Every structure is written in structure tokens, then in C-alpha cells.
């Protein structure tokens, strides 16, 4: 992080100086340059009070720590103001090599810090690069504050590129998957819209917002402006469930014999985990944590995520907390050629979710419709405290005894799940390529005594090994998934998470899939350039493996070519040397590691370097999953 430089203009004198500088420059033009016969027109060539300085003040007022951007001429005025007028401090400019990386870094940053990242992009070419990452953030209900440079006034476009990079309605490209946008035509409107956008982005359910910053507005002088004020930022309380619905849910939970709590995108803040522990322990009810957020400690005796299917089948009440795909949770959807689907449970279904409060039509991320017995359209985290209280009021001594007996049985199941995970991991333990279970176990062995954060998904790509084998006991131990299942998210979101973790001194670990990294590997350079400590351990199976599996299914269904599915899906000819790639980006690269016994020394060496404040990449040749 750079030291704060002294702003060229003190913020408090911003307005008082705004009217004078342009006139001062005009007066300095030599008299000999003027014609004696015509009225003098003095070309103003400089200004020390551009509109961008006010925009910078607006950004500072919102408390952004960082600004992620690939430089773009459409916002050059704000770029210059941020680094000179603003002193490149809060926000500090983080140089990105792709706009998708900028937004995805913001995605990962928020999941650790709980505050939005500021992102700049060209309104045209930059936003087109960024759009996939915007979609991921939208699906994952993560706010990112995106500012688009644009030159709306055609009369002042100077070059053909200015025309190519101008657009009537810049935000239209992502309006289907953002929560709010505006294109202010004045500086006062810019300030008001920025504050409004920030507030809306942070109001649950959160999502990205877009503000178009007009280039002309940012570069022309501010003359005689007494109207430049920045409105005070206010926050909206998250919508909590109404008391009648909460009371009814408490009744259902207290009376259920086999309730199951399923946590989706529950944890909006670090407070959520404690609330969910309170509810689960009060009821002695099992919790299935989807892995979308760090909702519940995985070693808690009531965490039965590894037994989810049986729990769902045998439940008499299922409570979903911000579960985006309730239908998929309670139905079996066949994978064979003919579509088939059937319910797997007769349980009553209850949901607390703010999902319907941010519903848009075009992109189908809202999933298949599932009828529910009790549907509370509210933020689950905000509702949990009142639900806990309502359940407490319903507990009798008899119920407490029954719940305790249930809890003992569930704890036994939890122990068995962990034992099974360890047994499963023992298979192919010494295999080459290295099993993903071995890889994850070796990483855990090296980080377990550190203050760590897993900044990658514990999902199908890694057979969920981290959540099966590690001990996730704190809210920041992992950051969940991408939201939109859009590839290219992993590496930049991990760098963003590591950037947020830096000031806390946490060891950030990213188990990085190879295909994902190849979308925009330039983010490794960003990590090296800004000295962002991050341990990247490659899960290098040399394929877009999920896609190969998809093609394999179809080849089998079509009764042909079952041996040809590597075409278009493998990344092995030539094999990519990620250690060399990392070295080329200016960071320590280790590997490729092909033998399991070589993992521990490589990890120790890598962690030593990360602890010195540097990013490191270790390339590991792995099994598919």
C-alpha cells in the first residue's frame, strides 16, 4: 500500500478555489498571441480545478480503500485526479490487466471486507470485458461499485477512437444483472447518484451498481460552483421477517421431529454464523451448509452437510436460509437423456430469503419455482435473532430433553461423516497425478496453525475436500463461490480477498483450477506488482474437466465417439507450466510438483515467502477431481 501523498488542493478549500484558477491561466496568455483586429478569444489550455477532483472527493467520502481498474481513456480525467489530487490513497489505484479481473477482485474483496470495491472501466470496451464478472457478482448478491467512463457529448469527441468508445446508454449492457445505474449530467447529480448507488448496493439483497462518469464532466474546469455538496451517506436496515411469520416458523421448528436447516447465501456479515449456531443449538437441529458462504463451522457437531441427501429425504421440516435453488434441494433431477424430476421429501418447506426482492426477468438465475409452505421474503441474517427469540419462547422442559437426545444422535452422525471423509481421502493417497484429497490434506497440514483464509471455492472442482477435511471455525475462513458459475472468477477473486486480508495479516490460500486461471492470468502480475500476499496452489488437471464430463455424457447418449471428448477440453498439448507463468509475472513460481511427497517442502517454501508479503504460485499436477 502506498503512503498517502498530500493532495494538491486541500479538501476544505475545494470550493473556494474552484472559480479562480481558469481565469488565472487565461490571464497568463501572452498579449502577442492576440490579433489586434478581432475580439480576443483566449484558449484555455489548463485547469487546476477539473470536475474529476470533485468526483474524487465523492469517492473519498464513501471510504473506498482501493480502486481496481485497467486504465482507459474514457475515464482518464478521474484516473489522473485519483492519483494526483487524491494522492492515490483511499482509494489506491490497483492496476489490473483485464476488467473482468477488476470486478472479480472486487467480488473477492467484499466477501472478506464487507465493503464494496470501486472499479473503473471504459463504458464500452471495458464493460464488455467486465460483464461476466458483473454477472457472477449479481448472482452471488455481492455489491461492486462500477464507474464507467463515457463521452456522451458527440460534439467534443476528438478522435475516431473516442467515437468507438462512446455509447448512448452505457449501463444498458449490464442492466439485466445490476441493481441500479445512473448517468449523471452534472456534478451535483454525480454526487447524489454516487451516494444513492452506494446505499442501494449495500441494501440487502446486495448487488453491483453502475455510475457513468462523463468524460467531459470530469475534465472541464469547475467555474463558480457553489452547489457542489456531497450528500451524507445513510444505510438502510436489512428487511427482517414480520413477527407473525417468524412466530409461525418458530412453532413449526419447535414441533418438528426431524427439522433440517439449510444455509445458502445466509452470511451477509460476520455476525450470521453466531446467529445460526444459536438457532441450531437451541433446536439441536442439523445444519447443511451449502458452501456458498461461511455460514456454520464445519466441525460443529450439528453440521451434517455430508449427509444432506438422507437428511432431506427424512425431514419433516426443511428451513432454507437464502437458498437460491430450493427446487434443486428437494427434488431429484435426472441426468439421463429424458428429463425427469421427482420430489425426494414430504417435508414441510419454509424459507427466509430476500431473493424475490431482487428479481429480474431476462437472466434465469432465479431457478425453478418451488412451492413453499411458509415463505418469508426477508433477509435471513436480519431475521435470525428474532427467530431465535421466538423459538426460545416455545421451549418446554420436555422439548429441551427431546432436543438434547436428538443432538446426541446428530453428533454421532457428524463424527461418522468426518471419519468417512478421511477414509475416502486415503484412497489414491500416493497416486501420481496427485489426488485432490492429498493435495488439500497437505495444504491443511501446513496452514492449520496459521490465521488462514481459503479464498477459493470448496466445491465439486475440488471434491469439496477442504470443507470435508479442514477445520473452518471462523466467519472469514472461506469466501464461498462465484455465484454465476462463470469461469475466470477464481484467480482474481482470490487476489481481491488477499488484498482485503493483507491488513489483518492473514495467510490467504487459493486452490486454483488451471482452466480458470487461463482466462485472465494477468491478475498474477497485479498480485506481484502490489505485493499482495497470496499462496496459489494449482489444481492442475490439465483440462476444462467439467466440460469434458458434459461432452462425455452426450457422446455416450449419442452412442459414438466416447474416446474423443478430450478434443476441445484438454489443456495438455503443450502442457502449461504455471510456475514459469508465475515467474514471468514477477512472483515466485514452484513446480510443477508431480509426486505427493514433494508437496510439503514446496508448500513450506511457498508459505515462508507469502509471510514476507509476496504472492507465490505452486503448480501441482493433479487428478481430475
Amino acid at each position: 500500500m502506498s503512503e498517502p501523498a498530500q493532495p494538491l488542493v486541500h479538501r476544505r478549500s475545494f470550493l473556494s478555489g474552484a472559480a479562480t484558477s481558469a481565469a488565472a491561466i487565461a490571464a497568463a496568455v501572452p498579449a502577442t498571441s492576440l490579433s489586434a483586429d478581432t475580439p480576443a478569444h483566449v484558449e484555455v489550455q489548463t485547469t487546476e480545478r477539473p470536475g474529476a477532483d470533485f468526483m474524487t472527493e465523492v469517492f473519498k467520502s464513501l471510504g473506498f480503500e482501493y480502486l481496481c481498474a485497467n486504465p482507459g481513456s474514457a475515464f482518464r480525467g478521474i484516473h489522473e485526479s485519483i492519483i494526483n489530487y487524491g494522492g492515490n490513497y483511499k482509494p489506491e489505484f490497483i492496476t489490473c490487466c483485464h476488467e473482468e479481473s477488476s470486478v472479480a477482485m472486487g467480488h473477492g474483496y467484499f466477501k472478506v471486507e464487507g465493503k464494496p470495491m470501486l472499479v473503473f472501466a471504459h463504458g464500452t470496451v471495458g464493460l464488455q470485458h467486465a460483464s461476466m464478472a458483473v454477472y457472477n457478482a449479481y448472482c452471488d448478491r455481492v455489491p461492486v461499485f462500477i464507474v464507467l467512463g463515457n463521452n456522451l457529448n458527440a460534439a467534443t469527441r476528438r478522435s475516431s477512437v473516442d467515437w468507438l468508445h462512446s455509447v448512448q446508454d452505457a449501463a444498458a449492457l449490464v442492466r439485466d444483472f445490476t441493481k441500479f445505474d445512473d448517468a449523471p449530467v452534472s456534478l451535483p447529480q454525480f454526487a447524489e447518484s454516487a451516494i444513492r448507488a452506494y446505499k442501494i448496493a449495500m441494501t440487502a439483497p446486495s448487488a453491483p451498481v453502475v455510475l457513468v462518469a462523463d468524460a467531459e464532466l470530469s475534465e472541464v474546469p469547475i467555474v463558480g460552483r457553489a452547489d457542489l455538496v456531497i450528500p451524507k451517506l445513510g444505510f438502510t436496515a436489512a428487511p427482517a421477517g414480520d413477527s407473525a411469520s417468524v412466530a409461525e416458523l418458530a412453532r413449526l421448528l419447535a414441533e418438528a421431529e426431524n427439522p433440517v436447516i439449510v444455509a445458502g447465501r445466509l452470511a451477509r456479515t460476520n455476525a450470521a454464523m453466531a446467529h445460526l449456531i444459536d438457532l441450531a443449538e437451541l433446536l439441536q437441529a442439523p445444519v447443511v451448509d451449502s458452501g456458498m458462504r461461511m455460514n456454520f463451522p464445519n466441525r460443529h457437531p450439528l453440521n451434517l452437510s455430508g449427509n444432506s441427501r438422507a437428511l432431506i429425504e427424512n425431514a419433516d421440516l426443511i428451513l432454507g436460509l437464502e437458498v437460491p435453488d430450493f427446487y434443486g434441494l428437494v427434488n431429484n433431477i435426472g441426468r439421463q437423456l429424458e428429463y425427469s424430476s421427482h420430489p425426494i421429501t414430504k417435508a414441510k418447506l419454509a424459507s427466509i430469503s430476500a431473493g424475490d426482492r431482487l428479481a429480474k426477468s431476462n437472466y434465469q438465475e432465479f431457478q425453478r419455482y418451488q412451492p413453499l409452505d411458509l415463505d418469508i421474503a426477508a433477509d435471513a441474517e436480519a431475521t435470525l435473532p428474532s427467530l431465535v427469540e421466538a423459538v426460545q419462547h416455545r421451549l418446554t422442559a420436555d422439548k429441551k430433553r427431546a432436543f438434547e437426545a436428538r443432538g446426541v444422535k446428530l453428533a454421532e452422525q457428524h463424527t461418522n461423516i468426518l471419519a468417512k471423509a478421511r477414509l475416502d481421502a486415503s484412497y489414491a493417497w500416493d497416486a501420481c497425478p496427485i489426488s485432490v484429497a492429498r493435495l488439500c490434506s497437505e495444504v491443511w497440514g501446513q496452514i492449520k496453525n496459521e490465521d488462514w483464509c481459503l479464498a477459493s471455492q470448496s466445491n465439486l472442482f475440488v471434491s469439496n475436500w477442504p470443507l470435508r477435511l479442514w477445520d473452518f471455525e471462523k466467519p472469514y475462513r472461506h469466501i464461498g463461490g462465484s455465484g454465476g458459475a462463470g469461469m475466470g472468477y477464481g484467480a482474481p477473486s482470490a487476489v481481491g480477498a488477499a488484498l482485503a486480508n493483507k491488513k489483518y495479516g492473514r495467510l490467504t490460500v487459493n486452490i486454483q483450477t488451471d482452466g480458470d486461471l487461463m482466462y485472465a492470468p494477468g491478475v498474477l502480475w497485479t498480485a506481484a506488482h502490489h505485493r499482495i500476499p497470496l499462496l496459489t496452489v494449482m489444481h492442475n488437471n490439465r483440462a476444462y474437466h467439467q466440460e469434458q464430463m458434459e461432452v462425455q455424457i452426450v457422446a455416450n447418449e449419442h452412442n459414438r465417439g466416447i474416446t474423443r471428448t478430450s478434443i476441445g477440453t484438454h489443456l495438455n498439448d503443450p502442457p502449461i507450466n504455471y510456475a514459469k507463468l508465475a515467474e514471468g509475472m514477477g512472483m515466485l513460481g514452484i513446480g510443477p510438483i508431480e509426486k505427493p511427497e514433494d508437496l510439503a517442502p514446496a508448500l513450506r517454501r511457498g508459505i515462508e515467502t507469502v509471510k514476507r508479503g509476496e504472492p507465490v504460485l505452486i503448480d501441482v499436477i493433479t487428478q481430475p477431481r
Partner: protein
Amino acid sequence: MKPLAILVALTFAAILNAADADNGKKLFTADGCYQCHGRQGQGGSAAPVGSYGPRLAPPTIPVEALRAYVRHPSGGMPPYTAKVLSNSEIDDIYAFLKTIPAPKPVKDIPLLNQ
């Protein structure tokens, strides 16, 4: 053991003896089995909700059960018809799976006891 049972057992033993484990290993990769089940048949993905690619090695089911399932699978596995995978090739794959030893006990792997 009754004579008929002995005959059946001997027949299956003969089938397995005739099976080619080396070819089975090649097929296990070439035909995509490894994609879900791992290169040593150790099993694949397990998610909080749902899973697929169960462990295959060492095999715990008889070869005829494997044949039957491969032809008409349920769940996430796609079918392998006789047009793309013959019975003898399934037998070869089964023979390969039988060559894979059981792992050492978990208690003997320190990293799995942390």
C-alpha cells in the same frame, strides 16, 4: 458348494483370468471412466448437496453387476451401450480395478488425523 454354483464360479473366474487388466487401464482413461471416478477408481466429487463418481476400486461388486449398471445406469452416469463398449472391455476394466490395492489404514496417515 453345489456343482452348479461351482461351475458358475469357475466360469466367472475364467472370464476374469481372460480379462486384460492392462487394456482395462487404457480403457478406463480412454473411455472417460476416470473423469468421475478418478484415475485409481478412488471416487470423485462430493458436494454438500449431491455427489457423483463413487469409488470403484478395489471393486466391491461382482463383474456382472458392473456390466448391468454400465448398460443401464441411474443418477448422473451416462449409459455405455454394447455399441461403444463391449462386455469383454468391461471385463478388462473390472480386471484393472481389481489390481488396485486397498489403501493403508487412515490411522497410519498422519495428515488424515489432524
